[in-house]
């Protein structure tokens, strides 16, 4: 029977095994070599040189959540790519932004998108936002071996919780540890500066457009102090990737919209290079 299934071109047994709705589970059974965590790594000395993505920021507002990322990838002190995209829709109501080793991160996002879509198609219903966040946790955990060799991937996950009717943000560490963030979050090399900026500018009652300005301000501040984070590049027309998720689903700002937000901030900063000032007391 086994020989029979191999030569006729019929679907192999793994395809027809009922039970699992997870694409990852299916892959690890049928073609484990396609999973990043299942590939054996040769022993190496020191860190591997590969492009790294940098800063991702997110903030909630009463009607949803915004997630944005700068466009720079660096390799050591070299700018590896000026226009990399690090924020992706995960499905209709969630998005994921990634910092860390760019190649692995993009692969992980692709797998994560597929995992959610696969579940949706097989089960006929979507995962809960918590369920999605947990799946991402598992995927990061399976990458721990590579993270220890310097190829870490640390995402930020944001989505609209359809049941609770609010935007939520989840942050991760390299071991897959997951924590829900209240209000705002940042990850990547510029996150220290971005978080400082978010902390001073965030308020509970932001409108959508204010929240969009907030995250781009934070990215501007991150780029100001972190060489691995890219600011808006007016000359080349490269602006941050800004996305917003509301009860109407995922939306990415068009280039024109993103440039409008970025240019407005840039104009103000020509007068006040340090950006808006928070009250002292």
């Amino acid at each position, binding site marked *: *029977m086994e020989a*029979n*299934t191999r030569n*006729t*071109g*019929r*679907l192999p047994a*793994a*395809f*027809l095994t*009922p039970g699992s709705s997870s*694409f990852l589970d*299916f*892959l690890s059974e*049928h*073609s484990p070599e*396609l999973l990043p965590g299942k590939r054996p790594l040769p022993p190496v000395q020191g860190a591997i040189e590969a492009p790294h993505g940098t800063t991702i920021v997110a903030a909630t507002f009463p009607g949803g959540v915004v997630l944005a990322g700068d466009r720079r990838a660096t390799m050591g002190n070299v700018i590896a790519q000026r226009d990399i995209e690090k924020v992706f829709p995960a499905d209709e109501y969630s998005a994921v932004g990634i910092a860390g080793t760019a190649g692995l991160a993009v692969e992980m996002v*692709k*797998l994560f998108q*597929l995992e959610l*879509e*696969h579940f949706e*198609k*097989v089960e*006929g219903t979507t995962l809960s936002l918590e369920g999605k966040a947990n799946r991402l946790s598992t995927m990061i955990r399976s990458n721990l071996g590579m993270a220890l060799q310097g190829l870490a991937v640390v995402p930020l996950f944001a989505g609209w919780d359809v049941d609770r009717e609010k935007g939520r943000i989840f942050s991760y560490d390299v071991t897959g540890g997951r924590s829900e963030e209240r209000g705002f979050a940042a990850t990547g090399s510029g996150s220290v500066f971005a978080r400082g900026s978010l902390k001073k500018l965030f308020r509970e009652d932001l409108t959508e457009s204010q929240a969009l300005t907030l995250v781009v301000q934070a990215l501007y501040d991150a780029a100001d102090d972190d060489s691995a984070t890219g600011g808006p590049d007016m000359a080349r027309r490269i602006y941050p990737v800004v996305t917003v998720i509301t009860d109407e689903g995922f939306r990415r700002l068009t280039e024109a919209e993103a440039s409008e937000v970025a240019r407005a901030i840039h104009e103000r900063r020509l007068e006040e290079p340090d950006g808006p000032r928070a009250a002292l007391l």
Partner: protein
Amino acid sequence: MSTPFYVSPQQAMADRAEYARKGIARGRSLVVLQFTDGIVFVGENPSRALHKFSEIYDRIAFAAAGKYNEYENLRIGGVRYADLRGYTYDREDVTARGLANVYAQTLGTIFSSAGEKPYEVELVVAEVGEAPDGDQIYRLPHDGSIVDEHGSVAVGGNAEQISSFLEQRHRDGMTLAEALKLAVQALSRDSNGGERQLTADQLEVAVLDRTRPQKRKFKRVVGRQLARLLEPGSPSGAEEGDSDTEPDE
């Protein structure tokens, strides 16, 4: 030791085909029709949860008549096949033709292997193109053959009668409402030539809509949108937009 009776290969295959056909005929029929903006799937199905039509990939959908556990198995196999292929190559490289081929091989092998009972299913795999002439509809009977269909196709119990009814009346460039009404008309005729009344809540309807802005073109037509499309004098065309974004939904 008793000698087994000799059964000629022709007879053995005929028996298996008969067995599969009878199983399929027990199920309700369903129809798949092309309309101007895509492909519509219509079937009688009182259940809201157990679907006969499902999304396989961006532009590809699946319809099945026959035994639930068997076609559900094939459906999940198809989703896994499509997702794996799209992941290994690219989303564009997943085609209905490839999927239909795999299904045909699977059904054919099962049908002719003496150790397995033949599947009592008949499948339709459809892919919506950028324009109507890019649409593809494949019908896959229980024995592993493939039929490339155009315009309309019916599978299940009363398929032959329904197909001939549809063939005479279906034309290119129908609107969704027209195609849907024709489908319901075809499904409500029973084998004795009588007519039954089919209402919106007895129907399962789905479309592959090429005008949908999302990359996934499959969408179920339910509730008020379905009822409105089935109304006798319903305007043709205006209601075909994505109902999710309509304020009155």
